[in-house]
C-alpha cells in the first residue's frame, strides 16, 4: 500500500492567517511512503512538517522538486536532513538546458538570501537533473517525470507503487487562455502522467472567473483541473495549490459553486494539509 500525506497545500506563499488554517497554510510538500520507504515531492514550507527523526531511519532522503519557484523550495533552507552530517540527501529537479540545477538552487541557498552556501551544507548532497520523459525506480517506487505547462522548467510526476498510482501536477496550466482542453489527448500537457491514476493531485488555484484574468500565469481553474482529471480518467481528484489570498471560507464557497454546476463521475475534494490517502 502506498500512503500519500499532504504536508503543504497552499500555493504561491505560506499563510499564517487563522482564516487559511482549515486547508492549511504551508506551501507544497507531499510525502509518499510504503512501509519504511519514503520519497518527498516538493520542498515548500510543508516539508518542515515531515518527521525526519522518526520516519526516516535510513540515511538516505529523496526529494523531488517539480520546479524551483520559491513556494516549492522554500522549505529546503530549513530541512533538517540537509544540516545533518552524513545524511545522504538526493535532490531531483528539472533540467533547464542552460544552467545546472545546482547553480540554480545555489542562487537561493547562498548569501545574501541564505547564510550557508549550498557547498557548505553538511549533508552528503547529490543533485540529479530530470529531463522530459524520465523514469527511475527507487525501492518500491517507479517515478515518471515529464515537463508540463508552467512558466520555467517544470515537471509533473507519476509515482507507481504496487498497484497504486499517484499523479502529482501541483502547478499546471494544461491549456493557456482557453476555457477547455484540446479535444485530442496528444495535445494535452501532462495527460500521460495522470492516465488512469488512482489519485490525481492537481493545481486548481483559481475560480473559472478568476482564471479569465490570470491566463498564462501557469495555474488552473477548478474547471480545468476537473476536465483534466476526467480526460485522464483518473479516479479521484485532489484540488491543490490554494491561492493564499483566498480564505478557507472563500475556497469552500468556490468549490461548492463549482460542484453545483458540474456533474463529473469521480470524487473530488479540496486538498487539506495533514490529509492522508492510502492507494
Amino acid at each position, binding site marked *: 500500500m502506498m500512503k500519500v500525506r499532504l504536508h503543504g497545500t497552499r500555493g504561491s506563499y505560506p499563510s499564517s492567517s487563522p482564516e487559511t488554517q482549515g486547508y492549511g497554510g504551508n506551501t507544497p510538500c507531499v510525502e509518499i511512503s510504503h512501509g519504511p520507504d519514503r520519497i518527498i515531492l516538493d520542498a515548500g514550507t510543508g516539508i518542515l512538517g515531515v518527521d525526519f527523526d522518526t520516519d526516516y531511519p535510513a540515511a538516505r532522503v529523496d526529494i523531488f522538486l517539480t520546479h524551483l519557484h520559491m513556494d516549492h523550495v522554500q522549505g529546503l533552507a530549513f530541512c533538517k536532513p540537509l544540516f545533518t552530517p552524513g545524511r545522504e540527501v538526493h535532490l531531483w529537479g*528539472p533540467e533547464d538546458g542552460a544552467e545546472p540545477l545546482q547553480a540554480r538552487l545555489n542562487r537561493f541557498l547562498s548569501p545574501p538570501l541564505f547564510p550557508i552556501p549550498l557547498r557548505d551544507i553538511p549533508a552528503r548532497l547529490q543533485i540529479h537533473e530530470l529531463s522530459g520523459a524520465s523514469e527511475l525506480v527507487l525501492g518500491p517506487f517507479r517515478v515518471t517525470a515529464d515537463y508540463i*505547462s508552467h512558466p520555467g522548467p517544470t515537471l509533473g510526476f507519476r509515482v507507481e507503487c504496487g498497484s497504486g498510482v499517484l499523479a502529482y501536477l501541483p502547478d499546471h496550466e494544461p491549456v493557456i487562455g482557453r476555457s477547455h482542453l484540446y479535444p485530442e489527448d496528444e495535445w*494535452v500537457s501532462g495527460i500521460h502522467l495522470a492516465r488512469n491514476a488512482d489519485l490525481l493531485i492537481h493545481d486548481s488555484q483559481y475560480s473559472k472567473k478568476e482564471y479569465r484574468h490570470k491566463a498564462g500565469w501557469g495555474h488552473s481553474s477548478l474547471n480545468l483541473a476537473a476536465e483534466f482529471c476526467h480526460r485522464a480518467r483518473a479516479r479521484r481528484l485532489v484540488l491543490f495549490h490554494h491561492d493564499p489570498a483566498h480564505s478557507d471560507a472563500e475556497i469552500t464557497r468556490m468549490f461548492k459553486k463549482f460542484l453545483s454546476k458540474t456533474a463529473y463521475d469521480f470524487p473530488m475534494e479540496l486538498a487539506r494539509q495533514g490529509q492522508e490517502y492510502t492507494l
Partner: protein
Amino acid sequence: MSVHALEIILSRQLADSLSVPVFIVDPEGNLLFYNPAAEKVLGRKFEDTGPMPVGDWGTSFYPRDEEGNLLPPEALPLVETLSRKQPAHKTFWIDSLTGKSTKISVTAIPIIGRSHEFSGAMAIFWDTEAP
C-alpha cells in the same frame, strides 16, 4: 496514443493565438497542425485534412518556383529545417487545395526543447500579395 513534447503543445497554443499562418511538423516531417490563418491560405480546415506525412503535404500544394518548376519536398524550407535543424526561408508559389495560386514566403524554425531534443519544426508563412 502518446502525448506530444511540451514545446510542440506550446507551439500549437502559440499558433492558435496568431493571425499569421503557422504549420507545425514532427521530426519526421509529419504535419501535426496548422492554424486557422493557414487554413485560409491552404484552402482547407485542419480538421478536414488531419495529420499528413511529409510526402503528402510536401506535394499536395504543388509548390513551384518563379518559372513554374515544381519544387521537390527537400527544397521546401520546412523540410530543409528538418534535415539541417536550422532556420530556413524561401519565397515560392503554391496552389491551395481549392486550386487558388498564391505566392508565399515561408520561414521555418527548428523546435528544440530544454533537453536539447529536436521535437520538430514550425513554419510561419504569409501571402506575399496580401494587403
